Every structure is written in structure tokens, then in C-alpha cells.
């Protein structure tokens, strides 16, 4: 048998083994009771110089085959933890043969698909990008109007009240100071509880000025747990006798 094999034409040692198995017309499982493994070792031995990286796989496989052969000549050894190398190689060959079969089928599909030609995109003149407004409905427009009107009514209302109060001059700092001290007799008070039920801006400002004046005089103490929390007022160190 003077078959010359070029290792480069095989896609690795498994491919070569499968090729030899195919030539010998044997089942993968019969590889070790056939001539195939000797053939493989001989081919790799005769191949001469080749790319070391490519060759290493073939040589490693040759070593594995020699190992399996030598094991078969010796009395049965305990099966190592890695399992039977013979059984493992057969499984690997079967798996690889399976994917080779699929690859052959896929090649058919590839050829069929390559007979369908596609085309390049057409040159299509495009107009400038258009913007589509979302959520802009007449309903939203009316809602926005309503919101706007409500806010306006609120603003004008407040101004009117404020004007009236200024005219009456109801809130003066001394008056407010007296009012605060009077209320504090009943115990600690929140700043908000000192205000009327519909406080105007001037009422709030005047009351706050009164509060600061009382603090300066040391006639009450104030604390606030956190920013924007209500201010809690209580009697100061100088007591309330003077009020």
C-alpha cells in the first residue's frame, strides 16, 4: 500500500483517523482491532518536516495510540481516574464524525443559498427628517389652559387679600410679639399654629419678625428639627413675667 498522505490536507488528527477508518470501511468502534492505528503512526512518521504547531497535534495523537496499544499488551491495569483512554478516543471520534456529517449537509445548504442573489440598496432621495409630536392632543391643550387659568386666579386672589390686609394694618411687630407670648403661656407652640387659617404673606413676615425680636431678647427659644420643618417655640430663659 503506497498511499502518500499530505498531512496538511487534513484538518487535524481526528480528521486523518476518520479518513483512514473510512478507507478501511470499518466502524469507528473497531479502530483498535484494525490496522488503522498502525497506519496512522506510520503516516505521521513518514510525513517528514512540517509546521511544528500543526504537527504537534498529529504527534500527540500518535503517542496516545501507542499508549493504548501498549496497554492492551500488558495485563489489565486498574482503570485510571480519567477513564479508559480507548473509550474516550472512540467517543471523541464519534462526536467529531457527527459534526463532519452535519458540516457536509451544511455545505449543501450553503451552496443552495449562494444561488440566491441579493441586490444593493437603491439610491433613494430622502426629504429632511420630520418630527412627530407625541402626546400633543387638543385635550392636553385644554388641560394646559385650565392649569394656567387656575394658577392665574390663585395669584390675583392672593394679591387682593394682601392689599386689603395692608390697609387694615392688622399685623404690626409689637402686636405679634404680644400675641406669641400670650399663646406660649399654654406651653410650646408650633410656628404654623400661630398663623391664622388663611395667612397672607404680610402676616407670615410680620409674625416671623416678631419671633426674631423675641429670640434676640431671649424671651423664647425656637428649634427646628430639619430644614423646612415647622419651627417649635417654647418659653425662653427670661421667662414670661414681663409680658
Amino acid at each position, binding site marked *: 500500500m503506497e498511499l502518500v498522505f499530505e498531512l496538511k490536507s487534513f484538518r487535524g488528527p481526528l480528521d486523518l483517523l476518520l479518513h483512514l477508518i473510512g478507507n478501511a470501511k470499518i466502524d469507528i468502534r473497531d479502530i483498535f482491532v484494525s490496522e488503522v492505528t498502525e497506519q496512522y503512526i506510520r503516516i505521521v512518521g513518514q510525513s517528514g518536516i512540517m509546521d511544528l504547531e500543526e504537527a504537534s497535534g498529529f504527534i500527540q495523537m500518535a503517542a496516545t495510540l501507542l499508549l493504548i496499544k501498549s496497554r492492551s499488551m500488558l495485563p489489565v491495569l486498574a482503570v485510571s481516574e480519567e477513564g479508559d483512554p480507548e473509550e474516550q478516543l472512540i467517543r471523541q471520534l464519534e462526536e467529531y464524525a457527527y459534526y463532519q456529517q452535519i458540516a457536509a449537509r451544511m455545505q449543501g445548504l450553503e451552496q443552495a443559498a449562494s444561488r440566491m*442573489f441579493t*441586490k*444593493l440598496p*437603491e439610491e*433613494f432621495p*430622502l*426629504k429632511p*427628517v*420630520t*418630527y*412627530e*409630536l*407625541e*402626546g*400633543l*392632543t*387638543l385635550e*392636553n*391643550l*385644554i388641560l*394646559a*389652559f*385650565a*392649569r*394656567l*387659568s387656575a*394658577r*392665574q*386666579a390663585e*395669584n*390675583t386672589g392672593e394679591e387682593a387679600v394682601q392689599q386689603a390686609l395692608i390697609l387694615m394694618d392688622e399685623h404690626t411687630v409689637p402686636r405679634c410679639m404680644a400675641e406669641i407670648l400670650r399663646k406660649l403661656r399654654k406651653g410650646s407652640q408650633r410656628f404654623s399654629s400661630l398663623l391664622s387659617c388663611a395667612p397672607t404673606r404680610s402676616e407670615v413676615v410680620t409674625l416671623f419678625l416678631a419671633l426674631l425680636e423675641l429670640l434676640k431678647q431671649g424671651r423664647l427659644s425656637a428649634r427646628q428639627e430639619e430644614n423646612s420643618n415647622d419651627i417649635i417655640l417654647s418659653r425662653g430663659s427670661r421667662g414670661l413675667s414681663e409680658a
Partner: protein
Amino acid sequence: MTAQRLKGVIESILFVCGESVSVDSLATALDVTLIQIEQALYLLETEYAQEGRGLHLKRFANQVQIASKADYAQEVEQVLQPAQHMTLSQSALETLVIIAYRQPVTRQEIEAVRGVKCDYSIQSLMQKDLIRESGRKETLGRPILYGTTERFLSHFGLKSLEDLPVISKPDTPPEPAE
């Protein structure tokens, strides 16, 4: 080759080619008569004219070419260049409402109603082609007057500004702070 197959083959060739092909070269390459080619092209052209087809057979001089149907150009464009979706912010919406109902109106007048600066909203509404400059107010500084656009009407499906829904306005609009 059957007339049907020839028609299919020609469609295949014109599709792959993309450019125009001469009727003669088709006849030569496929080894059929010019009459056969012409018959197949006639059938193809008739079929393409139907609503359910999106292609068009262009014939000029001795050439033939497949193109897309002009009637469907708008839909093609929708896919190639989908409209950008955007939403209006609440403040832009408020500004738009004021302009719609009070036009022509100056920026100062809008700001007097909203109580905040409106430069940005106005700019954004201009960009979206919902409002436009409609002139100048003949007062100090000749401020720009704003009004709504055709696009504003078409967006809301309105025929004219008179179709804007009537909303009860607050009794006394505040005067602009000038």
C-alpha cells in the same frame, strides 16, 4: 423555456442587475427571440401595474430596468427615514396654548401670563414648526409677535383657528409687565 419561466428568469436577471439591461442582450444570452422577450416584458409590466405589486418596469430606448413603484415612495421613506418622535414639555405646551389663543402675541405678554421666562419654550416650539414669527408689535422696542403655523392646525386636525375649542378664559388677564 415556457413563457412563464422566461418571465421569471427575466425578473430574476433584472433584480440582480439593478441597472438597465438591453433587450437584445437578454435575447442573446437566453437564446430566445426578441418577440419572446417582448412578450415576457409586456406580461411583467402588466403585472407590476397591479396594486399588489411594488415594482415598476422602466423601459427606455432598447433598455429595461426594474425600479420601485413611485406610488409607494412615501411608505418607503417612512421605513428608510422614520419620523422622529418627540414630546412637548409642560412649559412648552402652556406657551403654545397662550400663543394659540392670544395670537399675535409678544414674548413679554406670554411671560406675563405664565409668570416665568419663556425664551426656551418659544425656541423649542419654533424648531418644531408649531409657531412662527408673525410680525412686530408697534410699541417700544417693536417686539416680535408670535402666531401658530399650518402645522399646528394640521397636527390638531383643525381647519382654521376658529375651530379651536372655546375655553372659558379667566376674567381679567393681567397686564404684561413692561
